[in-house]
């Protein structure tokens, strides 16, 4: 099972890094979201994986999953949302001000034809 988690973290990180390195704003935002998934899962996994443990304090329970990473990740998820929202709006603003959606504000779109050889 641990291999599967590691695989997921790896794939999400790789996708995130690749997308973050793109030249347009939208893929970069999607990439950042990927990276935050990867980080959240990674952080969560730091408490080690537990299946079927109770979520709340229960005198009869044999053990608990580690609540500390969970609390950290919970707020991280919400903050990541705030960040994603901010960045995407920044992208919109950049498009308004600069007239294109290149991450550096450079207009590299071919003047004729749409989207190149998509």
């Amino acid at each position: 099972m641990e291999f599967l988690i590691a695989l997921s973290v790896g794939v999400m990180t790789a996708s995130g890094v690749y997308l973050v390195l793109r030249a347009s704003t939208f893929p970069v935002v999607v990439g950042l979201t990927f990276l935050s998934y990867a980080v959240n899962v990674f952080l969560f996994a730091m408490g080690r994986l537990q299946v079927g443990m109770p979520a709340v304090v229960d005198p009869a329970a044999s053990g608990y999953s580690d609540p500390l990473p969970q609390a950290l990740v919970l707020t991280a998820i919400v903050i990541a949302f705030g960040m994603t929202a901010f960045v995407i709006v920044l992208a919109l603003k950049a498009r308004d001000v600069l007239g294109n959606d290149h991450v550096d504000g450079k207009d590299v779109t071919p003047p004729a034809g749409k989207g190149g050889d998509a």
Partner: protein
Amino acid sequence: MNLSNLALPVIVLLPFAGALLAAVSARYHRVASAWSAALAALAALLALAPLIPAVFGGETLIQSWQWIPAIGLDFAFRLDGLSLLFTLMILIIGLLVILYARYYLSAKDSMGRFFSYLLLFMGSMLGVVLSENLLQLLIFWELTSLSSFLLISYWQHREDARHGARMALAITGMGGLALLGGVLLLGEIVGSYNLTDVLAAGDQIRAHEWYLPALILVLLGVFTKSAQFPFHFWLPHAMAAPTPVSAYLHSATMVKAGIFLLARLFPALSGTEEWLWIVGTAGMITLLLGALTALFKHDLKGLLAYSTISHLGLITLLFGLGTKLAAVAAIFHIINHATFKASLFMVAGIIDHETGSRDMRKLNGMIKYMPHVAVLAMIAAAAMAGVPLLNGFLSKEMFFDQAVVAGRTSDWALVIPILATLAGIFSVAYSLRFIHDVFFNGEPIDLPREPHAPPLYMRIPVDFLVVICLGVGILPAITVGPMLAVAVEATLQAKPPYYSLALWHGLNAPLLMSVLALLGGILVYVFRRRLFDLYEKRVEHLDARIIYNGILNGLLGLAGFITRRFDRGSLQNMLVWIIAAAMLISVAGFVSRDAPLFGLRELMDFDPVALFAVSGLVFASLVTVVYHRYRMISLIMLGVVGLVVSLGFAKFSAPDLALTQLSVEIVTVVLLMLALYFLPQYTPMVGSRMRHLRDILWATAAGLGAAVLTLTVLTRDMVPISGFFIENSVPGGGGTNVVNVILVDFRGFDTLGEIVVLGLAGLGIVALLHNIRLYAPLQDSENRPWTTDSHPPILQSLSRLLFPFMLMIAVFIFLRGHNLPGGGFIAGLIAALAIILQNLSNGIVWTAKRLKADMHQVIAAGLFFAIGTGLVAMTLGYPFLTSTFTYLYWPVVGKFEVASAMMFDLGVFLVVVGATVMILVQLGKLNYLPVTPRLRSEGGV
């Protein structure tokens, strides 16, 4: 509690409150800010008044509270003779300056800004002189630098003001940093930052091996602040400030902060060879340099600035001599200099105000136009020159006396009295110039304005100060004697030596020096033309500012060079750097340890469902990447990934996370979709094949690294630290859901920070979207027109039906959050979803009509609840955000637990709802912007 036990912090904080009041009251009436400033200063004086008798009785008042005991920082204040002297100077001269500035500022200047800066300074300066704790003193010390910066740059449109302010801040800020180092060393040596301990540990400090570094660092702070050579050059450039500021900060008070510190730490640091050499030499050079340069300045304020430098040097030199009598002379001269120099600056301001010029080559014969001012100026300038029957004479005699005493110590020391006399000669010469050139010497030469007498209330502060000069000069023992005695005793921390304040000490060396200085000064003034020529040819171009600018430009150039090397204006480039650096560091970490890569923890079995889910995740991720140029597809696939992640949380015993991830996922996808409408739906193919290959390589390496790292951790055992939280969750926090109790109770402060960030992100987004113009496309990427049916009826009716249920679930999740999975974050997201769904299905206009709440206020209310809960705990005497709980019995529901943390959670809930809804609604509103046809035709990229 006895109110007078709070008096000292109140005195310091009153001006800060006054600053706020001045800023606010200026909105109603511009003069109101002057009144409130005066009121604050008066109130501080009134608060001080009942403490004065005790200080004159020889007491040292200390009022102290613990602040951060771990680093030795107390909230501690001290009032003894020395701090009383400075406090009185700051408040009384402050009041006079406020009155003066009220008439000095023109209708174009913002009074509110001026007076609130001025009071900001007053409070900071009071903090410096009244602090008992050295670290706290340092905080106020920095505040004086900052407020001085604000005041120098008050006329922001003027370049010289901006440059002067920056220079002053750079120099004094640098000194503040050095002082911090010095204070930290002192604290380490003594083991306490409280002045009482430091002053008592003088022998210990002087014997310590860190004495010299500590001394040098402290003196760097002192010299930069008090404009001592070689840091003196910022002061003349600070004269770009309005004249009341120059009178107050740059002659009477702030520049004395350094000197104050010299006096304050005199018992702890003085009495060594090093002290004598460093302080004495700096003081002597400054004294001479200031006196010589002052004569050649044609600008009235320039002359006064260099004269101030010179007098500061004189006081520093006196402290440097290190004897008790020299310290008496220094303290005495502090008082005298503050009075005559502040009045002279005010005179300069009056002349500038009434004639429009400060150039002494044009200003002549002013006695005809303002005779009263001329008399005042003559008395003050005579005090500056050291003419008998005025206060300057007395302290100057004491200075000469000490110079003679110091001159007897060795042969070379004979230069001390000689140089002191030379400085005296020039000081007489420039004082004479100030009077003769401005008030006599023929007729004025094309002044911008017809000179006339100043308003009465602009003159009264000068009257007051000049009366003090006379009073101290003629009847010193009665007027200033007692104050001087307690101030000296506090400075020396010992019984003061015998000194006499008599006017006549008989025919002795100091008197001879005074006479020499007076005659020599007149002689120098008579032959000034030749000296001027010499100065302009040989000296004028030598300016420490050139060195300063060289260093500054060098630093800026270096910073620019480094920035340009790393930041080529390309985000992709920078990100590659960051990723590469992160990987390098982590690989280095792996390699440098010889521990095996993987641990021996027993692994869990594979599980077909998990395998299936992870395959889905991998597939969706790959599709997102491969088809990332089809943005809609990649967005949908992103949603799939998020869903699998939340399923993963659910599987591995983290229901709270699963719920949060699920709701955030929905909000994120909706958000990105709303934004995508305004962005191209295709990503064009840019960049070379090589570049893509490179990126794939980086991505693979990063993914591999992350996977290996995860596995490295997961295959090792660990001892969690969360046992504490699990054990204390019920007895301490009153909730069985440990995750929620951590969020709202154990780590409530973190959560507070996070909701603040979320609220700020929401506000930032509103600001970004303000006045935005975007092209609303007419067709989608396949050239299909967008549907005109924006609100399908089935969705509409279903969503309206769902709304109350969704809210009910939100309330349910919220209420159970403390004991079962749920809580403010999740409930907030669900409630936000309910509202957003209405916006999507029924339109923003429809929803806005029915949901009248302003989301700004919801966020504010949330923060209010969250912070309020913490403050309530504080008022009850517990630390911030302490929570409590009790059990209530409700009919039907039964036993019900009420925790104060619930109020905090309500705050979290409100902020999450407010921020989330605000973000999405603001984005959605863009659709309703009027789009001009021209833009429409450009759309549809």
